[in-house]
């Protein structure tokens, strides 16, 4: 098959994008605006908030998210016009029928839109099941329903995740498995969908309060409801063989889509763990749930990462994901799409968890030796690196916490014959051990959440479909084998980006907001209905394509 021209395929096309405020959605929007300015239109679905309508939220995002700096520098005062001619902001919400879009806008979208890219999703591993169900499952169904109503070409590119495979081991094919769960049991997704709905309703009913309940009682009720909802989701996911609520819900979305919309042209786009950009606008990261928490944990005195040696650790830079997503979109628009695309690196350029752990340790070592504020940081902590620990070790988090609790109990029950000052000291130390135990609880929870990916499950996600999709423009070719040399990437791109963009968030501090020289303001009046035909004419006029 001839290579696909991404620019020619997307020129003049109208795409509706959800999830544009997220890490991946934002980067993809910048990529398209920068590298394919001949795109016809990107309609960005955004929720308005009580104090900020959707268009103002969009302005705020473009003006303050550092990823837009490149466009600000490139276009300067012309950025408002440039973006407004190519982007329109559509107020709506993923969890509503037809996204809750106003009727006149909806009609225009249905007449003009070529493709919907559903990039919206809740990526927390174990959130409130109600939120995950609403966003990740019902949101996907709403996207499909809207896609089906498109008059020009009903098409949907649904952004999912590789990890819908759950605890299935081995080489994972690019197929949609809708009638079987990871444990190999028969799986009726419609029945499961109803089970989740019924269970959540029952749970909410069990926590109902009288109308005159105090705000304190309501707050307590909400906390308990959330806690029980999370437990419900985690237990159910584990029952079927998914490691967490996120992967369970994402799989449900895929299975529901193929079963409820068999005639709709759609593809599942499944990225792995999305991390720092490597080739295009290198050094950008905003992810919260990737390798960042691990790297942050290893920054301190904590060392033992539960990991199986040689276990694949599928990290993929966000720019390669965006190129892959763009290529998949172009394939859909050209009628060449495959049912599913994996977008990872373990197939073509494998990184293992033990290697990632050592590289993280080396990065911290180099950073502390040069920038450590104290002598102990530069000389001691720099040499105290994280280790991938395959077996149950005496230094496991569970053992450390047990030891802390045991010591605390012993110190609180100090013998009577001790002098008073010694007893007081014992109480102080007991308090410190309690504090340590409380501080380690979320760490243990985090390690448990990651252990399916680092230790328990050996998976390689085959990326044959993206690899085989040859494109004319070399900058868009999905080639993690050529684009990434892992040591260089981890030490000089990934870790500095995590330090700059992600560690402050974990520490509870703000990252500096970007302030452009020229303030961007989206101008709804700059609609460009003729832009599509004009742009295509320009390309034709330059002799690129004779139509």
């Amino acid at each position, binding site marked *: 098959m001839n290579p696909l021209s991404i620019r020619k395929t997307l020129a003049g096309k109208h795409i509706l994008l959800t999830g544009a405020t997220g890490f991946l959605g934002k980067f993809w929007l910048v990529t398209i605006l920068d590298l394919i300015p001949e795109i016809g239109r990107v309609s960005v679905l955004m929720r308005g908030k009580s104090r900020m309508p959707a268009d103002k939220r969009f302005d705020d995002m473009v003006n303050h998210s550092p990823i837009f700096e490149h466009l600000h520098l490139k276009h300067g005062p012309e950025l408002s016009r440039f973006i407004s001619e190519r982007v329109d902001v559509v107020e709506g919400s993923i969890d509503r029928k037809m996204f809750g879009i106003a009727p006149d806008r909806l009609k225009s979208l249905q007449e003009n839109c070529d493709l919907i890219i559903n990039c919206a999703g809740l990526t927390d591993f174990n959130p409130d099941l109600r939120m995950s169900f609403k966003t990740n499952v019902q949101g996907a169904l709403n996207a499909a329903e809207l896609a089906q109503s498109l008059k020009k070409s009903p098409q949907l590119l649904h952004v999912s995740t590789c990890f819908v495979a759950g605890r299935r081991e081995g080489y994972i094919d690019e197929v949609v498995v809708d009638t079987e769960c990871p444990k190999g049991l028969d799986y009726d997704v419609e029945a499961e969908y109803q089970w989740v709905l019924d269970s959540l309703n029952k749970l909410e009913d069990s926590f109902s309060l009288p109308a005159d309940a105090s705000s304190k009682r309501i707050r307590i009720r909400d906390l308990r409801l959330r806690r029980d909802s999370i437990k419900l989701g985690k237990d159910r996911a584990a029952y079927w063989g998914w490691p967490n609520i996120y992967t369970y819900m994402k799989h449900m979305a895929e299975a529901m889509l193929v079963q409820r919309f068999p005639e709709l042209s759609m593809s599942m786009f499944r990225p792995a763990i999305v991390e720092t950009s490597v080739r295009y606008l290198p050094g950008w990261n905003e992810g919260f749930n990737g390798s960042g928490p691990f790297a942050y944990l290893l920054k301190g005195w904590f060392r033992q990462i539960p990991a199986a040696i040689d276990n694949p650790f599928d990290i993929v830079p966000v720019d390669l994901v965006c190129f892959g997503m763009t290529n998949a979109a172009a394939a859909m628009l050209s009628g060449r799409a495959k049912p599913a695309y994996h977008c990872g690196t373990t197939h073509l350029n494998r990184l293992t968890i033990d*290697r990632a752990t050592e590289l993280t340790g*080396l990065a911290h070592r180099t950073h502390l030796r040069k920038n450590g504020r104290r002598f102990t940081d530069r000389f001691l902590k720099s040499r105290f690196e994280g280790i991938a620990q395959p077996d149950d070790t005496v230094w496991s988090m569970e053992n450390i916490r047990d030891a802390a609790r045991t010591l605390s109990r012993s110190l609180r029950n100090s013998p009577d014959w001790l002098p008073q000052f010694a007893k007081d000291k014992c109480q102080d130390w007991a308090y410190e051990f309690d504090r340590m135990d409380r501080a380690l609880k979320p760490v243990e929870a985090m390690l448990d959440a990651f252990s399916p990916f680092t230790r328990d499950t050996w998976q390689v996600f085959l990326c044959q479909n993206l690899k085989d999709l040859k494109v004319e423009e070399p900058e868009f070719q999905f080639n993690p084998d050529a684009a990434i040399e892992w040591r260089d990437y981890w*030490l000089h791109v990934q870790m500095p980006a995590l330090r700059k963009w992600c560690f402050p968030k974990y520490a509870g501090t703000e990252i500096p907001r970007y302030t452009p020289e020229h303030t961007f303001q989206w101008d709804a009046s700059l609609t460009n209905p003729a832009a599509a035909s004009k742009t295509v004419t320009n390309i034709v006029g330059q002799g690129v394509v004779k139509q």
Partner: protein
Amino acid sequence: MAAYFAANAHSISERVLRLGSLAVTGPLSAFMGQNDRGLSVRLAYSACRGMTQDRLLTLADEYYENFIEDQWLDQGLELIQQARRQGHRVVLLSEGLEMVMGRALKDLRGVDEVLCNRLEVRNRRATGRLQEPIIAGHEACQQVKKYAQEQQLDLSQSLAYATYGGDMLLLASVGHPCAANPDFTLRRAAREVDWPIVDYNN
């Protein structure tokens, strides 16, 4: 160099083991080095066996920055520039590892090539063996002769600067040897055979 790598292995227990093995092989290495420097160098780098290439490259950068980068002597650098001006091809010979000494090529203007030792790496881990050819003692001299043959260089017209007694064969194989900051053994030999001696410490 091998001791630095061993002392900075991944885990504490690994550091203890590797340093321990160096402590055992060290005296043997020093003894053997009197007659067979190549064996001594091989023994030393065997302590790197099993270390990942990622770690070795990082430690190599550190070693270079901590122990070599600021240690180039001005007079030595001037000698290199002088050789360049005279139209010589300048080759740096070192018992160190390529991952460390390779940076000298970037830092030292005027050096055309660095001949040094390379650790064998398989599946991203050092095997503990050095790849042939080994650059140490008599073997270094053999390599220089082979290099000269390949590059069609006349060693009788070449200059060589060396510091250690183990480099006597190398100095003897060129037309213009020079003992630079020589150790006791080389200084005595240089005096006996009337080789020029250069002392500088800036």
